[in-house]
């Protein structure tokens, strides 16, 4: 329940969309990781075995892509990279070490978040397009040379996506008060002032 | 089974009456139930039974002669009379009277096959002539001809010949017989052709391509089209044409084509091959259409048309072998 001075960061639909993506990420990700390396093949047990993992993985991936499309449409405008983001990136190392003091003020999304957004977009697109090259259930066999490039890029993009998600999840844990934005939809004014001052001003000006 | 084929006497086989002693009771040559010694004992009155006259003698009263393994060769000529059985009558060399001169003496005394011993022909082999027919009778060794001598060619038994002649097939892509200027000798003048069949011959104007029928390794005649394992290796009816003809007609591998002769038409897949080339026949380019035969209207293989829909009804003048491998067709995309 929103208290009188809490700021709404995400509405209900956006939150549901996000969590759908998150759950599908785990499902598609774990089923995919089962094939990534033999040491992770045990993950296929979560989905009923190797064959079931192979069957389900592409459906989970496509579903995740479609859900992400919904998110993309909602958020892309606010994630366009600008000059201030470049300044933020230059100072990011200091922030990481724990000194937030010298960071330039940011709007709704800082440069780190924007990079995460575009990395997710790019890797999901590559995952979808390359995945089609070898989804036998629905598509005819593409030439072998194309499939060889496809499987390599698919594995590479998957790693990029996993690492990006790790960064994304960690950031939400590291900056206290962030997770509530996605679980409840609201953030405290203090959180907003500290982490996204320009957005705070926008929101409180109204 | 060999015993049965040899034959046996069902009743006593009697010798013909002795002209010198007509009153004497006839001799019993073979007792009832005994194996016959040879085809000379076969009778046409039901007293003998035999599976095949040429094998008569293979299993005599002495036993299975085809199982004999005597390697002795007294003549040194490699005759081996008592090794197995050679049909007919265990004769090892046909026309062996020719081993002796007209006087009945061996041509080469060192290689004595059979010769006249004064009363009969005898030697290291069973004579291939009536043993009593001495040299004085002038009987020649080639017992199947009336004159007793060999012939270079058959006389009186052929519709045409005796020397081989080239004739064009009745449906020829060229207009003349290059080997014979007689206009009546383009195709075999001695072939038997029914009037209706003659009327069904086509000309190279309407049907410009030479066609031939043949067989494939994957199928045997018309029965393996009913065998799935064969059908997998060669499932559909096809015809083969050379690349030049394919280009002329705008055909490529896998197209469905219609092949027509003056008698009918068939549909098939076309295989374009480098193995068939246009032939230069006295200045005219003649293309060939190859037609494998194995398909028909039933079978597990993909059904097809009978290739004999196209072939002409005419046969060789002597043997009646049908001219199914040389006729005329036209081809186009279906």
């Amino acid at each position, binding site marked *: 329940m929103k208290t009188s*001075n809490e700021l709404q960061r995400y509405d209900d639909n956006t939150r549901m969309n996000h969590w759908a993506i998150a759950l599908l990420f785990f499902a598609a990700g774990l089923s995919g990781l089962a*094939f*990534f*390396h*033999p*040491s*992770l*093949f045990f993950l*296929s047990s979560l989905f009923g075995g*190797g*064959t079931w993992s*192979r069957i389900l993985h592409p459906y989970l991936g496509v579903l995740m892509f479609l859900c992400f499309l919904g998110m993309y449409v909602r958020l892309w405008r606010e994630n366009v990279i600008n000059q201030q983001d470049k300044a933020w990136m230059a100072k990011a190392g200091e922030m*990481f070490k724990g000194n*937030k003091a010298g960071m330039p003020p940011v709007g709704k999304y800082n440069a780190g978040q924007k990079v995460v957004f575009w990395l997710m977009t790019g890797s999901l697109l590559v995952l979808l397009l390359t995945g089609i090259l*070898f989804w*036998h259930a629905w598509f005819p066999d593409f030439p*072998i040379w194309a499939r*060889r*490039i496809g*499987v*390599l890029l698919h*594995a590479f993009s998957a*790693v990029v996506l*996993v*690492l990006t998600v*790790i*960064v994304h999840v*960690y950031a939400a844990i*590291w*900056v*206290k*008060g962030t997770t509530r934005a996605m679980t409840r939809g609201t953030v*405290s*004014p*203090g*959180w907003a*002032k*500290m982490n996204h001052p320009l957005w705070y001003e926008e929101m409180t000006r109204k | 089974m060999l015993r049965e084929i040899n034959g046996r006497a069902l009743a006593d086989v009697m010798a013909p009456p002795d002209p010198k002693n007509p009153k004497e009771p006839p001799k019993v040559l073979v007792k009832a139930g005994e194996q016959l010694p040879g085809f000379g004992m076969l009778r046409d009155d039901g007293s003998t039974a035999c599976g095949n006259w040429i094998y008569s003698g293979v299993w005599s009263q002495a036993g299975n002669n085809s199982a004999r393994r005597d390697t002795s060769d007294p003549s040194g000529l490699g005759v081996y009379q008592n090794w197995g059985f050679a049909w007919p009558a265990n004769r090892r060399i046909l026309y062996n009277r020719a081993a002796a001169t007209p006087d009945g003496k061996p041509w080469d005394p060192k290689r004595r096959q059979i010769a006249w011993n004064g009363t009969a022909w005898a030697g290291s082999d069973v004579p291939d002539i009536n043993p009593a027919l001495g040299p004085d009778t002038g009987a020649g060794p080639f017992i199947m001809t009336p004159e007793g001598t060999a012939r270079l060619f058959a006389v009186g038994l052929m519709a045409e010949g005796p020397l081989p002649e080239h004739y064009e097939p009745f449906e020829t892509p060229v207009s003349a017989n290059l080997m014979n200027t007689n206009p009546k000798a383009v195709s075999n003048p001695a072939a038997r052709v029914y009037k209706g069949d003659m009327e069904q011959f086509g000309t190279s104007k309407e049907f410009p391509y030479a066609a031939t029928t043949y067989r494939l*390794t*994957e199928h045997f005649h018309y029965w393996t089209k009913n065998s799935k*394992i*064969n*059908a*997998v*290796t*060669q*499932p559909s009816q096809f015809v083969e044409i050379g690349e030049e003809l394919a280009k002329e007609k705008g055909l*490529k*591998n*896998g*197209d469905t084509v219609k092949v027509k002769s003056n008698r009918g038409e068939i549909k098939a*897949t*076309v*295989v*374009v*091959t*480098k*193995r068939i080339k246009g032939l230069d026949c006295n200045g005219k380019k003649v293309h060939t259409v190859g037609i494998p035969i194995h398909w028909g209207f039933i079978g597990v*293989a*993909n059904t097809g048309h009978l290739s004999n829909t196209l072939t002409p009804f005419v046969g060789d003048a002597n043997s009646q072998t049908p001219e199914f491998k040389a006729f005329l067709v036209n081809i186009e995309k279906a």
Partner: protein
Amino acid sequence: MTMQSSLDVIARSATTTPSPSVRQGVEVAKLIDESKCIGCKACQVACSQWNELSDDIGTNVGVYDNPSDLTDKSWTLMRFTEVEDAAKGTMEWLIRKDGCMHCADPGCLKACPSPGAIVQYSNGIVDFKQENCIGCGNCVTGCPFDIPRISKKDNKAYKCTLCSDRVSVGLEPACVKTCPTGAIVFGKKEDMVSYGNKRAGELKERGFQNAGLYNPAGVGGTHVMYVLKHADTPEKYAGLPNDPSISPLVSLWKGTLKPLAVFAMIGAVVGGFFHYMKVGPVEEKEDEKESA
């Protein structure tokens, strides 16, 4: 040739630990002499009969190759190529028996993500164990010769087994037994190599200067070899690859980068954990919270 037991498996798909190595196996090989092959397809039929496969009856797409490609139920195929040499005025009908080459360094095994779906025996035979196959098709992507085929019926991969069942009891493969011209022979690999080289020598004497043995080193040598009249241009024979090897893309895809990536991903989580412990979270200061 011993019974194929677990002791004979020297390599296993998606397995990072060593396979049994105590037993010393004898390598076998099948040698196909293209110069003696007449394209009769008896080998295709024998293979189907021994393995009790009954493929579908297809259609003729305009070639003598039937079926037109390898399938889950046709594990060997005669491929016909007509080659003309205008300069020499020759036309050759080259016929090659296509099928698994049983590489010493199998691309299929390297690409397979399912443990034990593909095994390699000490005698050189590379076998698919369909009970472990998940039907992903990676083996097709990894194979330099485009051999394995996924069944549309059961989504499992199939290919020539080099009659591992027959070989394990001392019999020759079905195709070897059937070949009417003796174009396919079978025995110890070293014997087949010397016989193959001898045949190549005989072909050279008969005017085929480029005759040779096809036993490509790029895949470590193969346990199915060819004697070819034109060993210098194997691609003439329906695209048999010249000097094949596992594609560098496949090697990259399945190479050391993979375990490094796993390490990196786990490392990122562990790193985050330790970062949090060291640096502590970013939180609003106590007094600021109150005044807001």
